[in-house]
């Protein structure tokens, strides 16, 4: 196995792609329920294009961890049989769906409420992608990745990151009223609590599975430090973000600072995912 450093493209991909998926899901929920009049702006123009490009870049980046990036399309060969194939396929489907949606959304919106159907399809693709990502790393010989706490982390990243990203966009564009923002803050608090619980549950899994290693104590010390940093960044970031969202006039600076801290916690979580990988057999140093 290569070192955790060589897996950096996957750290980027598994941090950014679920965030984009979460942003599309949150946007679709806001849009499908007509939460505020300018909601269509979230899926069109700059915002929609930004998330499409970010997602495409993350997907392209993920191929850099392959020995042969040019042969990445062979990852589809076992679609339906390999969890990784399913994840890659769902990711590509999601990118294509949201790019097509952004391209035609202006025309669809002009034609009436028809735009909600393709938007729901894009959100469905995003949900499918997050689901397959949750399942992609579940290997029965890798008890850390096979545990529910590590699997569900992708879904938590998607919702946490999605809510935070949409909040920043609402602040930046001065969109939505106080009720919408309060709703997002409530969602963020729930996601934040879920994320902290996930870090706690992962700690128990790691402690149980590194005990056979000679460097178990050192690894657990590292885990404790990284876990504390993650929890602190999630809580502090969410608090700052909420402060920015709920202020009398929404403060973009606070929201962006909070979002950056939350993103840092997500990246640290993805690093931990690879760093504290534990196999049932011979340790993979």
């Amino acid at each position, binding site marked *: 196995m290569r070192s955790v450093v060589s897996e950096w493209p996957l750290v980027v991909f598994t941090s950014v792609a679920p965030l984009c998926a979460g942003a599309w899901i949150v946007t679709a929920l806001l849009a499908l329920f007509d939460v505020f009049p300018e909601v269509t702006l979230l899926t069109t123009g700059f915002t929609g294009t930004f998330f499409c490009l970010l997602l495409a870049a993350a997907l392209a980046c993920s191929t850099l961890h*392959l020995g042969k990036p040019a042969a990445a399309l062979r990852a589809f060969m076992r679609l339906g049989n390999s969890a990784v194939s399913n994840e890659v396929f769902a990711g590509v489907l999601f990118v294509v769906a949201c790019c097509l949606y952004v391209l035609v959304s202006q025309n669809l919106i002009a034609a009436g409420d028809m735009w909600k159907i393709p938007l729901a399809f894009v959100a469905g693709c995003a949900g499918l992608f997050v689901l397959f990502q949750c399942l992609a790393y579940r290997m029965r*010989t890798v008890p850390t*990745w096979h545990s529910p706490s590590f699997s569900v982390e992708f879904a938590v990243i998607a919702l946490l990151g999605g809510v935070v990203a949409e909040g920043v966009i609402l602040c930046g564009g001065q969109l939505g009223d106080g009720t919408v923002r309060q709703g997002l803050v409530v969602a963020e608090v729930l996601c934040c609590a879920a994320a902290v619980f996930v870090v706690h549950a992962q700690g128990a899994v790691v402690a149980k599975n590194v005990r*056979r290693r000679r460097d178990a104590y050192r690894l657990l010390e590292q885990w404790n430090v990284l876990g504390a940093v993650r929890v602190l960044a999630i809580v502090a970031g969410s608090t700052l973000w909420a402060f920015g969202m709920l202020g009398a006039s929404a403060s973009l600076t606070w929201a962006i600072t909070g979002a950056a801290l939350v993103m840092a916690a997500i990246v640290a979580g993805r690093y931990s995912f690879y760093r504290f990988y534990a196999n*049932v*057999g011979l340790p993979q140093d």
Partner: protein
Amino acid sequence: MGKQYGFRVNAARCTGCKTCEMACRDAYQLGETPSFRRVCEASGGTWMQEGAAWHHQVFTYYLSIACNHCDDPVCQQVCPSGAMRKQDDGFVVLDSHQCIGCGSCAFACPYKAPSYSRVLRVMRKCDGCRARVEEGRVPLCVEACPMRALEFGEIDEIRGRHGSQCDVAPLPPGSYTRPNIVITSHRHGCPSDTAQCVLANGKEI
């Protein structure tokens, strides 16, 4: 499926000389690629007080491990490109032309069998010297072992002669992948999943 070949490792005989590893490396010109066969050093024991004196009861034993061509190969299940396949003769073979070098098989394999070649940029692994076996010869590692601690043949025959023990530390319990390997345990051999002995040369293998 027809035949299923497998290895037997006699831990009571293995001295950890690594001749098997070297024979394999030379024959397949592995260069920078980690060895297909690796000699694991398992060690454990402790100090015991007896009156005013302290005695140690430490032990070490060696297990020469390569791909075990498992009946339930997890490497094949996770491979997204279909490069890893269990063949009709029971060998799990990696098609390097199909491999994209994603490393999923290495993450999943509990025996560290697949390794990444930085030069070829694909995974590589033991194929049980399939070409030699087709000619009626035994794999190179078996032929090279000076202690005759390695044995190769049809796994049913080996199990008939030596039993089916394979749950020996530092290897995982065989229930995960059903490996085609029989281990004759060292007198200090510990069961899998024990904390009483650890892999002492983790950086080396």
